[in-house]
């Protein structure tokens, strides 16, 4: 071995720094890692399917493969419920919150995948025939005529799911960064694949990518500073380093801030929320549903793990910041949402406001109590299901040129198709947190946790913001049901089996959790705390 190679190896691989020590077999708990392995494996298989299966059969193969993989992963998560294990040499923590969030992510991903499969394979698909074609070009028309279908959306979505599963489980910063990128990169691509309003979609993808790369840079910079302070990227080591030093070091503070920025970006908290409305609006609606539900769930898991496990010792420092971010996020989501005229943008601001409500519980944490953690977990489940359902309905209301997203087109929808409008109204009530929906208990849980954690001002702002958001939800209900329908209103697509299944899952979960929330609250209570 040449000295040069040894030098490079030493720089890249700390374990190999001394050529005389042997490389030990790392400990990997394959059972605990199974959900991630399954989803990652299925995604890779999906790439092979793209390579070898003939075009006509790819769609069905991919659908079966992806849904089967998700179901298998769900089974793996459920069978793992008793596992509380830090594995992969401390890189991955499979504990209660991880399993709970992985289960939730998989559940909403199944819903989202039903929508994706529905809209990818339909004759009037929502995905571009050939994403590389210039919008409006002859090549594009040729691709459309040829009936091309981008079945690559399935492996891409599955890679994103794999990232979402890894992200909250990561127990060191490097693994977390890998999870972050694995979940983000496919989403950047997917966001740009809309079939209609392609320029808007591509613009959204580019914006998402640029801002996402920007936030990733924050993460990496923060990681470097934290490493500089603690000499390690493992959460346990960071926590130890924090507990052993009494004086504050700006290095770790700035590092924490930069890490936090990247995570708050992912869960669309203000002032890093800018991408959210543009991307939600531009992306194909099934993808919007997927990332609105999945990304937020995974990002909250990761944020809580970073804050509670690694930086629990600094909670007196980050709590006021989370307070501030929560307040700004709630205000932005509530206030700017009022003047939105596009239903997807409106739901984007709604999603920002929900991030704020969730942050109140994170900000209300008194380290050592489990209430705020479990309330966030419950909220994420409730929010995930209602989001999938609401976007599924958005997909159904269509004009000649695709979805009719402008709210003026939704006027009088309740007269035209009372069932669809009724279900949408139900989801809006859930977003607003009114009975008999899961939204009520979710809000009650996070506000209660925040209040008991001493964040009463946050709760007051949360209440006011809820009232403002309720205003714009109710406004949609009013215009759907109490105004005369337009003469040339949009048509409502008869939902296929897939979309119906996704809507039914959403309605059922929202209603059942609205009537009997206790079992899930108990489950969330059992899932916490984070393994340190």
């Amino acid at each position: 071995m040449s000295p040069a190679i040894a030098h490079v190896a030493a720089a890249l691989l700390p374990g190999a720094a001394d050529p005389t020590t042997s490389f030990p077999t790392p400990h990997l708990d394959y059972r605990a890692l199974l959900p991630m392995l399954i989803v990652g494996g299925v995604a890779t298989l999906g790439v092979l399917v793209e390579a070898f299966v003939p075009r006509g059969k790819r769609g069905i193969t991919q659908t079966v493969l992806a849904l089967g993989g998700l179901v298998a992963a769900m089974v793996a998560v459920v069978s793992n419920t008793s596992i509380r294990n830090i594995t992969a040499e401390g890189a991955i923590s499979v504990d209660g919150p991880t399993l709970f969030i992985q289960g939730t992510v998989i559940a909403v991903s199944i819903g989202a995948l039903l929508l994706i499969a529905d809209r990818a394979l339909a004759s009037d698909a929502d995905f571009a025939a050939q994403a590389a074609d210039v919008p409006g070009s002859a090549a594009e028309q040729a691709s459309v005529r040829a009936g091309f279908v981008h079945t690559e959306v399935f492996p891409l979505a599955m890679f994103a799911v794999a990232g979402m599963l890894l992200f909250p489980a990561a127990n060191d910063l490097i693994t977390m960064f890998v999870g972050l990128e694995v979940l983000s990169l496919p989403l950047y691509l997917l966001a740009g694949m809309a079939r209609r309003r392609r320029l808007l979609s591509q613009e959204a993808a580019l914006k998402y990518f640029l801002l996402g790369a920007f936030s990733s840079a924050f993460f990496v910079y923060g990681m470097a500073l934290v490493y500089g302070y603690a000499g390690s990227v493992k959460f346990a080591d960071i926590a130890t380093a924090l507990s052993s030093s009494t004086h504050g070091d700006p290095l770790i503070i700035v590092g924490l801030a930069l890490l936090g920025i990247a995570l708050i970006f992912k869960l669309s908290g203000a002032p890093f929320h800018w991408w959210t409305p543009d991307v939600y609006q531009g992306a194909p609606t099934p993808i919007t549903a997927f990332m609105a539900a999945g990304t937020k769930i995974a990002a909250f898991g990761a944020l809580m793990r970073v804050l509670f496990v690694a930086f629990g010792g600094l909670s007196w420092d980050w709590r006021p910041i989370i307070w501030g971010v929560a307040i700004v996020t709630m205000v932005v989501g509530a206030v700017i949402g009022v003047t939105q005229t596009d239903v997807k943008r409106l739901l984007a601001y709604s999603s920002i406001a929900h991030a704020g409500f969730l942050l109140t519980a994170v900000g209300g944490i008194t380290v050592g109590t489990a209430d705020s953690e479990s309330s966030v977990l419950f909220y994420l489940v409730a929010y995930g299901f209602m989001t999938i359902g609401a976007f599924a309905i958005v997909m159904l209301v269509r004009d000649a040129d695709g979805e009719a997203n402008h709210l003026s087109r939704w006027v009088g929808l309740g007269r035209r198709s009372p069932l669809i409008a009724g279900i949408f109204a139900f989801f809006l009530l859930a977003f607003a947190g009114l009975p008999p929906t899961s939204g009520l208990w979710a809000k009650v849980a996070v506000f209660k946790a925040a209040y008991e954690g001493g964040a009463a001002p946050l709760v007051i702002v949360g209440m006011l913001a809820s009232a403002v958001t309720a205003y714009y939800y109710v406004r949609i209900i009013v215009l759907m049901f109490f105004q005369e329908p337009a003469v040339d209103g949009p048509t409502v697509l008869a939902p296929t089996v897939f979309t119906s299944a996704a809507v039914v899952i959403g309605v059922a979960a929202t209603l059942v959790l609205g009537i009997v929330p206790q079992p899930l609250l108990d489950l969330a209570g059992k899932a916490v705390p984070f393994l340190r």
Partner: protein
Amino acid sequence: MVFSYVPVLALFLLAGGFAVFSIIAGRLSGPRRYNRAKYDAYECGIEPTPQPIGGGRFPVKYYLTAMLFIVFDIEIIFLYPWAVAFAQKGGATVFLFVEMVLFIVTVFIAYVYVWRRGGLEWD
């Protein structure tokens, strides 16, 4: 505590000052004789390929080539430290071997995809 930032501040100033100095000094000292070649994009001294002016685009082939290059480049970089660890006696040989096979297979799956879908055909 604040004093520990003085070197950083100094470095910022130095960097910014150098940038400003270079631009101004270049303008002041250098001769300015423009011709068509100087306006062209610099492509390692060869004739520049057609530029995307007026709605044209780079052929996506370049992008593919670049991507494939990066894929194999990273793979090779990864192989070096692996080889160092593998060469040691008494280590987790089987584990390391399997891991690398998995890594290479995964990379090759992407390669196979590109190949099967015609990404390697120049035209």
